[in-house]
């Protein structure tokens, strides 16, 4: 006997003004675009709605702005949910999700390292994949392929 589909969560009532758009995606609970200023409140509300597992955090550089995507899984509803928020390119700052999902720690370190997104309130925002002292954010569109010797000089003091 298959489980009945979970009743839809009333996101507009839960999130209020923080909700920018609600986009359906086939096979999932859809994608919620939210205002980055209310990130902390959105995380709490989504967590309380049953999405206890944070699968990943990704950062995207759209040149004119940046985007952070959160993928969440609900064990009770057996469904995925995507959160996304747009950040201005000159000040890409969003509140950390580590207070709600502790597993966000390394994902946010990676997103900061690769596309330079600042997570306010992160307990330990340092390099994850690159050595300490690395001066680039290599997945930014503005990052050019360097001659290997240039990179060598930049990280030689490690």
């Amino acid at each position: 006997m298959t489980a009945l589909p979970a009743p839809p969560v009333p996101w507009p009532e839960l999130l209020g003004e923080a909700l920018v758009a609600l986009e359906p995606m086939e096979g999932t609970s859809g994608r919620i675009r939210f205002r980055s200023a209310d990130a902390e409140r959105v995380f709490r509300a989504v967590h309380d709605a049953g999405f206890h597992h944070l699968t990943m955090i990704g950062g995207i550089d759209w040149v004119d702005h940046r985007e952070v995507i959160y993928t969440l899984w609900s064990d009770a509803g057996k469904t995925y949910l995507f959160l996304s928020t747009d950040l201005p390119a000159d000040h890409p700052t969003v509140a950390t999700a580590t207070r709600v999902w502790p597993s966000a720690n390394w994902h946010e370190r990676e997103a900061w390292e690769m596309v330079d997104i600042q997570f306010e309130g992160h307990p330990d925002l340092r390099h994850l994949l690159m050595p300490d002292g690395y001066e680039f954010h290599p997945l930014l569109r503005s990052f050019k392929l360097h001659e290997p010797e240039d990179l060598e000089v930049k990280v030689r003091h490690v």
Partner: protein
Amino acid sequence: MSAAPETKGVRGELPGAGEAAVPFVEIEALRSREFIPAAKEALTSLIAEQGQSKLIRPVFNWAGRNSLFPLHWGLACCAIEFAAAFGARWDAERFGVVPRSSPRQCDLMIVNGTVTWKVAHKLITLYEQMPEPKWVIAMGNCATGGGPFRTAYSVVPGVDKLVPVDVYIAGCPPRPEAMLEGILRLEDLIRLRKE
């Protein structure tokens, strides 16, 4: 009573039969008192004659180059070929090559794989933990010059940026025969080594 003189006569022909027994430890001490000064004298005269380097260094050179112990660590797919070379088919141990797990027991570092900047200073630490004299083989294109990842933001373009390399082995990955050939070339290099 009558049989005793006969046996005594037989015993008297054996050397040292009538003397008190000497303990084994004293025999050894006596031997070393005589042997060690004689050996020392012979050795010092030889060294004075030929020079220390001519006498002893070739022995160490011969012993060292025929028992190269590589460090047992793998970075990427070249490590699979490295492991295969120690299997039954290629059997690198017939050249005295035995991988050791501690850098303090090694005199050869085979860098088999892509070296990233993150692992670079660990590699230098391992190299510095190895006792002198020591050699490095860059195995495969990645260790030689970065390979296909040369322009990547995270890859060291050749391990010779970090440690001095003696032998480069081309290939992606090199076959175990190529690795054995590299080791034999390194043995040739060691044979030609001037102290």
